[in-house]
């Protein structure tokens, strides 16, 4: 996959993880230096996976520019493109790339494509209850658990924990499924990657937020659910995943995500309407620079996601003409 190749390239050049397990920032990331004359209103509408991260960025940005007002609304990634097109928001955080149809609509209105900012790396985790002894799952097994079409190629449905190889009291217990509602980018991404574009089972309990999924799994011993790794609590455990049956399982850690081993790693995007002919206004320009700075990426760590590297930051910034 493209993202994995990119991540691999980015990770091979630098060591990002300390031995203790606490993630650290790419030391090459620039410090953010405030400039004068930045003020005004910003509004962000989009993904709820990115809701807290946008809020943390907003708080950080506001401490640099006290008079900037930032409002954040997060009801799901699908709400971002219409908001950008209608001009009701300047930033559209999305936990999946825009679909071709959404880009077309945007292009029809403005005559150019929206710009994507890759702000953070997320490992989508498959969570189980903390007492669940399961060691590893392949993507095909995940597909057979969540999907009724099973496009991953498994020939039989997985309905009980026994089907996944658990014994004892687990063997006969049915798997209780938790997931996100269809407006969410997490839902779309999971459907595309983990379900191989198949359909979810009807028994998946759709939750209004990522943390609601985690709470659902935490309170139901025989549950399984998916959401961003940033929402992990002490009550749940992220199952190591492998891309193919029989392969080595990768934990949902930054290391594995950068190395491309973890099959559900993805970029989190922030879409912006940048006209190729006009100069970007300082407010939005500075916010974008802030996201790519050390301070901005610290917010990523704080929210439990994985920071991006200098290489990615430079690539995106130069594409938007913001390098100096």
């Amino acid at each position, binding site marked *: 996959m493209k993202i994995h190749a990119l991540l691999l390239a980015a990770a091979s050049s630098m060591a990002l993880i300390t031995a203790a397990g606490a993630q650290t920032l790419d030391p090459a990331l620039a410090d953010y230096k405030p400039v004068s004359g930045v*003020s005004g209103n910003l509004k962000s509408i989009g993904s709820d996976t990115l809701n*807290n991260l946008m809020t943390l960025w907003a708080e950080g940005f506001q401490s640099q520019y006290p*008079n900037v007002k930032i409002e*954040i*609304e997060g009801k799901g990634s699908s709400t971002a493109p219409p908001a950008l097109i209608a*001009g009701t928001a300047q930033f559209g955080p999305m936990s999946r790339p825009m679909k071709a149809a959404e880009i077309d609509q945007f292009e029809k209105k403005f005559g150019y494509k929206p710009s994507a900012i890759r702000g953070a790396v997320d490992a989508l985790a498959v969570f189980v209850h903390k007492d669940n*002894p399961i060691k590893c799952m392949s993507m095909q097994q995940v597909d057979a658990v969540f999907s009724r079409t099973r496009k991953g190629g498994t020939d039989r449905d997985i309905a009980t924990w026994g089907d996944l190889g658990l014994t*004892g009291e687990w063997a006969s217990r049915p798997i209780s499924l938790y997931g996100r509602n269809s407006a969410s980018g997490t839902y779309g991404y999971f459907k595309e990657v983990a379900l191989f574009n198949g359909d979810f089972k009807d028994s998946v309990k759709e939750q209004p*937020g990522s943390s609601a999924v985690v709470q659902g799994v935490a309170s139901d011993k025989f549950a399984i659910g998916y959401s961003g790794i940033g929402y992990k609590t002490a*009550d749940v455990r992220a199952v190591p995943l492998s891309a193919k049956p029989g392969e080595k399982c990768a934990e949902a850690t930054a290391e594995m995500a950068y190395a491309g081993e973890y099959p559900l790693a993805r970029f989190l995007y922030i879409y912006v309407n940048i006209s190729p002919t006009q100069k970007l206004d300082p407010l939005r320009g500075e916010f974008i620079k802030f996201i790519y700075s050390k301070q901005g990426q610290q917010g990523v760590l704080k929210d439990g996601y994985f920071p991006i590297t200098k290489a990615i930051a430079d690539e995106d910034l130069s594409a938007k003409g913001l390098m100096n």
Partner: protein
Amino acid sequence: MNYVERDATRSLAEALPRSRGRVTDIAARGEPYTWALGGALALGIVMIVGFLILVLYNGATTFIPKPIAVMTLADGAVVAGEPFRSESYRPGTAVLEKLAPETRARIAANDGYASRTLYRIGNYDIYNEDFRWVSDFEVARILYPADLIYAERLEWGPFIGRLKSVHVGGAAREAASIPEAELVRLHGEARARWQRLRGIERSEIGAVNHQIERERLAVRKAEIAHGAGSAEARQRAAEAATRIAGLQKEYDGLATEARRLREEDRAVRVTLAAIGGEEKELPLSALVRFYPANAISLTGKAGIYLSRWWEFLSDEPREANTEGGVMPAIFGTFAMTLLLVIAVTPFGVITALYLREYARQGRLVSVIRISVNNLAGVPSIVYGVFGLGFFAYVLGGSIDQLFYPERLPNPTFGTGGLLWASLTLALLTVPVVIVATEEALAAVPRSMREGSLACGASKWQTIRNIVLPRAMPGIMTGIILAMARGAGEVAPLMLVGVVKLAPELPVDGFFPFVHLERSFMHLGFHIFDVGFQSRNSEAGKPMVFVTTVLLVGLIFLMNISAIAIRNRLKRKFAGSQF
């Protein structure tokens, strides 16, 4: 029952089949139904009271400082944390196999159950987790050392560990050598400096930035009015450039001052050490409060409890709403409810007056009445969609085109905001006011109107001086009901202007002082957000209870004051009747 009657009953009972004996008697008197009704009422009350007690208990205990336990685990690891909650569970076979035989025997003797406790271990920046489960059988030893502190930080959540050293004036001093009073004084000074720094950044630099933005908008406006590159636009741009240059100088001065303060602030630092020895150095002002959790007196605990409440009520949210206060949300809820009342009262009362007093009662009026009643049954989210489509996009969009073209494509009124949210809720609650007002008008005795008309008053004079004042308590009841409904509504607000973060209040020091177009925060939405969207749902749970207590309290307070006003009105008019 006298003798004759009983005799009659008996003979009747003998005449009838046996099955319709005493049971029928009791059923006929309705006793079982009375009991059932009473029971149902009691159940309802118990559930409401139980719910309130649950919320109040959890909300009230959240801010109580807890002791910090330091556990040495069987494998030698040391964990320090606040106990959060405990549960019993059945350890899996994989876990059991690793245990010592005597521990395994103990668990087996207990039906395979063991207990474990969730500890808040804090130090998220070091451990990458805030909470940790510790099973009782893992623990070798528990201690409560007196020198452990619980520090609430501006960033990264709480820190649990020891205060190692304090750096003042370029020299590091061991924390143990600093008397407590001096530490408190240093912290007070640091916090005051931080507040001053924030004041400069917020209000003074904020004002300069605001003016610069206004100049930029003025240039843009001139360009739109006269065309880009026209003489007027160029002249306005030149004016703006000189003014911005002046403002820039002012900004530089303030920025230097802010930088100086910041450096001063950074010069006073503390080093904290976690239980495992990992150290963190941060400015002293970044500690909101810290206390030795195991060595604190009862009065000290009470002080921390109160100061946490005060922070919660008066401060802005921090760390993506999971910490800090909810002041913007309290203000937003209050302002929205007030605007809602201002909007809904005239509409509701005027409609009801016309329907009851002026309109000829006929088929059309009853159709309208039925429609109004039906309106009350429309799901609230439908009003939200209407508010977004009509108020924000159509009405607000046109206002933007007409009055704020220089700000486009950034919308001013063309998106959700306080005004649109209040109007949407006013639409939602107007049927309540109409129905209540009509009832109140109908309850004014006909004789009083006739008396007034007989004295030569016109119809409007009668309504104004006789009918309306007497109907006032009933109208107030309608408004109270509308208010309670509106303040508790969240679903439509999510579409028309409530956001996760909007620390800027709709009222501030910049012209025109009241900004009804701004998005706002709302306690109801805050509960949803913290409960279901926050990263750390474990830490969010207690905050949900506290916010619920606050929301219930706020609605209660608003209702109580409305009821007090109504009672005053009642007394006033009760006296003037004869």
